[in-house]
């Protein structure tokens, strides 16, 4: 942060943003499958941190907890409240250069299976897996998901096994 008049908190906030925004966004993007929602929620979590005016004891866990609450609210209010009458304006999709058709089909198939597997996991397993994939510490994961920190490793191993089962056999009950 270059602003010489910025307060110590603002410097701290900027450093926090640089380090954690991307991984909070990626976590929410994978959790929801909706990049716009993930971006909105990640930004809102940081806005709330900025408005708070001081750093919480465990800022990473605090951000995840706020983001998770926002995500739950958004999902529940949306499923309760709205449905599209018809398709609205289409959106451009950012993507890598197009693949060969057979390659594209394989990637698409795998991507669909990952999405399905994530959606089929329990809330706890999904949270554990996605937070660890972004390198969050056991302590942050335990605080954010309200788990016993002493058993996070064991639960993570189970979450990976559950994901693997869902990914390899998407049709299993």
């Amino acid at each position, binding site marked *: *942060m270059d*602003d010489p008049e910025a307060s110590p908190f*603002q410097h701290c*906030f*900027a450093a926090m*943003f*640089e380090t954690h*925004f*991307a991984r909070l*966004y*990626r976590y929410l*993007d*994978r959790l929801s*499958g909706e*990049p716009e929602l*993930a*971006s909105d929620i990640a*930004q809102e979590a*940081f*806005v709330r941190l*900025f*408005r708070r005016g001081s750093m919480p004891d465990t800022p990473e866990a605090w951000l995840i907890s706020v983001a998770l609450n926002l995500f739950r*609210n*958004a999902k529940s*209010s*949306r499923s*309760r*409240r*709205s*449905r*599209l*009458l*018809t*398709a*609205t*304006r289409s959106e451009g999709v*950012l993507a890598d250069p197009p693949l060969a058709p057979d390659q594209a089909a394989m*990637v698409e198939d*795998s*991507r669909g299976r*990952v*999405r399905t597997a*994530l959606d089929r996991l329990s809330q706890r397993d999904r949270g554990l*897996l*996605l937070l*660890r*994939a972004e390198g969050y*510490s*056991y302590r942050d994961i335990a605080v954010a998901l309200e788990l016993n920190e*002493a*058993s*996070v*490793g*064991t639960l*993570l*191993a189970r979450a*990976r096994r559950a*994901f*693997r089962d869902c*990914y390899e056999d998407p049709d299993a009950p």
Partner: protein
Amino acid sequence: MHLDEEQLQRLLHGELTAAGSHELRSHLAECSECRERYIRAERDETEIFALLRQVDHPLPAVDAAGLMARTRKIGLVSGRWAAGILLFLGAAGAAYAVPGSPVGEWARSAAAWMTSEHRVTPAPRQAEVPPARTAGIAATPGKSYVIAFQSLDAAGQARVSLIDGPEVTVRAPGGAARYTSAADRLLIDNQSGSVFDIEIPRSVPRVEILVVDKRVFLKEGERVVTRHTADPAGHYTIDLSPPTN
């Protein structure tokens, strides 16, 4: 004695003290079974994390300075509005107290206008069929709902009807808008010249329509406050031009 699952995972994830890590690594050097388990767990995690990256989308272009500036601006604008309202109320109170001031009469007229002339009488429900090729959104509101047109450079019109159904619906021809539905509000990214049909349930206690943060329509109970008058069928046609000030 082999490593338990928690020890293995903590070693894999660097969640041990230096001494603890050293101790477990010494065990791995001697125990082929635990070493195999460790290698398998590491490989499994690497593969799964690679799979997870397949569903990633590009990172949005946001930076801390921009976010702080936007947050401060919102706070500043709110503060100015609050200060402005306090100043206005103070000045209005002083003017009201001056003997012979016309302000009291103005206030009584305004109150009468707000409470009587625009009271809604239930219009007969017409059997409306949505026009073909319209796109839109329906939402079941709670006690209070906001419909906000957000585009700064989009003119257009909205035809507002009060209905007996349970859902707020907003339709526009040809998908001329993009909708974001959040708790208690619907944000509309509208295009210039678009005409919207909005249906508001009479049963919802409070519904506001905003054009770039300026309220142009309020339904509160049976009362409707807007500068637009209803046509004989009870529809209000609202100009969506953004406020100029």
